[in-house]
């Protein structure tokens, strides 16, 4: 059910002079469906994440409300809605109020172009990839607005870090997407899914690695959760928020893994393709697998420092994405047929070459710009003569 279908149906019932109404009705229904679908799946995802993190931390996680704690997300939402909505007196009220919306909307908009079956909510958008890059980068404006408008130093710190981080990670992210576009010859998400005879995670693992890491940074999930950094900044950019506004921030933050999971699924995991069970189920399964990996990362890894995050992007991911792009370009140039398409065989050859190259490249770049482990054997300081005598 895409925008085009909805428009056609509405158009049939409305008189000629009310064509614009058809757009409005179709758009309204579409927005309603997307928002509700995403909010409900986000509610499910929060429970998934909390239960899973509970398991990782050898505790139970929420399990009181309903079977397996299923009603916990609703309890959370009700609590947040009922809370008092406090704004600091010195805050810039207008910016303070709209920033949660600015933070939330890009995630929802990005979802509307992802193909869940044969097409997306908006139909087949032929520049979907450009659209995705454009809108997913937007949410950081919401973060900055929140940080600036709260007039809180912690919030400002979080916002500044967020902006700096996003600028660095957009570049490798876009570079790995260029390789995807090159291979599939199209920017439409549907075309990219159809072009994947083998999932691109196998065809160019390096590109996937770069994109995945950059996605983590984009969502500011661990180990890149700089904008919140609860042990340093209290709560980061949303320190001053409470009640419904805070709920919107949380909603967008927990929705991002799903939206980005869907993007990664489409671009690298073969979208709806898969044997035995039907397409949409494969899609959901792959998104859940992605969500599992990021929850796993979050519960395992400590956070990087601000300058280390920048170094990692510019000295680690950026060279890797360039290597990937060069590699894929050469292979594509050699393997392409008359119309510029790749068959399953071609992609299998590329996979065989690229998988070892990925490990070598990550190893080499990691050793060039990574951390040296030069722990020397400890020698007692000569100042410790008293203890030496006692021994």
């Amino acid at each position: 059910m895409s925008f085009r279908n909805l428009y056609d149906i509405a158009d049939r019932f409305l008189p000629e002079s009310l064509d614009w109404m058809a757009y409005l009705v179709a758009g309204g229904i579409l927005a309603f469906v997307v928002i509700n679908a995403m909010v409900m799946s986000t509610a499910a995802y929060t429970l998934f994440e909390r239960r899973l993190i509970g398991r990782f931390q050898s505790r139970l996680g929420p399990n009181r409300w309903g079977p397996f704690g299923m009603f916990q997300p609703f309890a959370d939402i009700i609590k947040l809605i009922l809370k008092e909505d406090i704004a600091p007196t010195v805050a810039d009220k207008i910016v303070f109020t709209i920033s949660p919306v600015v933070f939330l909307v890009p995630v929802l908009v990005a979802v509307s172009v992802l193909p869940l079956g044969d097409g997306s909510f908006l139909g087949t958008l032929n520049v979907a990839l450009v659209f995705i890059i454009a809108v997913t980068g937007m949410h950081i404006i919401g973060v900055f607005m929140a940080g600036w408008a709260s007039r809180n130093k912690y919030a400002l710190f979080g916002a500044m870090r967020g902006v700096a981080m996003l600028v660095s990670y957009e570049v490798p992210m876009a570079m790995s997407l260029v390789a995807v576009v090159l291979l599939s010859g199209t920017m439409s998400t549907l075309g990219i899914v159809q072009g994947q005879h083998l999932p691109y995670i196998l065809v160019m693992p390096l590109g996937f690695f770069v994109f995945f890491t950059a996605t983590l940074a984009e969502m500011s999930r661990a180990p890149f959760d700089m904008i919140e950094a609860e042990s340093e900044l209290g709560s980061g950019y949303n320190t001053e928020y409470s009640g419904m506004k805070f709920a919107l921030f949380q909603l967008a933050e927990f929705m991002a893994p799903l939206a980005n999971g869907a993007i990664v699924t489409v671009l690298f995991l073969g979208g709806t393709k898969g044997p035995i069970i039907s397409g949409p189920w494969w899609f959901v399964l792959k998104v859940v697998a992605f969500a599992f990996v990021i929850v796993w990362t979050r519960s395992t890894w400590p956070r990087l420092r601000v300058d280390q995050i920048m170094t990692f992007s510019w000295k680690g991911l950026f060279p890797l994405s360039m290597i990937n792009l060069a590699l894929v370009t050469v292979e594509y140039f050699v393997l392409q047929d008359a119309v510029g398409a790749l068959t399953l065989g071609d992609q299998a050859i590329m996979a065989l070459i690229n998988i070892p190259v990925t490990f070598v490249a990550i190893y080499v770049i990691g050793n060039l710009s990574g951390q040296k482990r030069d722990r020397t054997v400890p020698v007692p300081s000569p100042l410790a003569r008293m203890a030496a005598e006692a021994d």
Partner: protein
Amino acid sequence: MAIRTEPITINLGPQHPSTHGVFRLRVKFDGELVLDIEPVFGYLHRGTEKLAEERTYVQIVTLTDRLDYVSSMTNNLAYVSAVEKLAGIPVPERAKYLRVICSELQRIASHMIATGFLLQELGAFATPLMYAFRERERILDLFEMLCGARVTLSYMRPGGVTQDAPREFWPALDILMRDMPMYIDELDQLISGNEIVLARTQNAGIIRPEAAINGSLSGPILRASGVKWDLRKANPYEVYDRMEFDVPIGSRGDTYDRYYIRILEMRESVKIIKQCIQQIPEGPTRTPGPFFIRPPVGDAYASVEAPKGELGFYLVSDGGISPYRCKIRAPSLINLSLLREMLVGWKMADMIIIFGSTDIVLGEVDR
């Protein structure tokens, strides 16, 4: 054109996730860089030293529980040692062994907390903390068997311990000592080689050995700087002179060393406890004495190697039933003396972990 900038001053604390209680740091930042700090403490001041002048010698034991509330056993031990020295009370052999077992168990529990919270401050989302707390729970269960309390123990008395360990205690201790090396290895494998932990902690907040000695630091922080100084070796109390154990030291005195030395010390503690289990004799656990202890006029200082450093009690007696003066040498407070040298010039995120690696407990800092 130069952009006009100015430093930001932030009050880190007294309510902040990483201040280990109610510590307050007034920090001047230039962007992310720390320009200057000013520690402000006293938010948890309860007047322990003054209160001690109003209590009998046995009652003060309960006050010491609340100093460093994650290692009550060693606090008790330091205090009762001072009283025993002041009043000349002998301690039975079995009680000495029980005290050593307890203080080493407490050292493991305290180091577990230190490690867990350091990782929490590094941003590992509570997983190492939960693992560390799981192990600590089992130690607290043992303490519960000994004296019925889990945190504020008051297990020790001048002249021994309150009561002998129950029969079920020993098999439980054996099982824990069998499992504990495994737990420590698990924590070690999870954290020590982690690339991000290395990147964050190595070379951060280095303390030179000279500076550490001049700042009169003690405990794991001093040893991480390469100074081999441990009261258990240098001035053996109780039965530590009969134990075989190493004093691990660090090579650089950075945050990583301060973390890793705690892992190594936990292993040594397990060794000590195992030896105690083998050597412990039968016999009484407390020297009988009068209800009110009236030490002769004089003063005494006794110190033990607490998990955080040298914990000492200086008691002055005027012959009455309560001390005329009680002075506590709290390692947490003295370990903070180099705070400015450690923190200035680092980034905000480093500041949090360097501060965290000193492992302070505010109950002891403010007293």
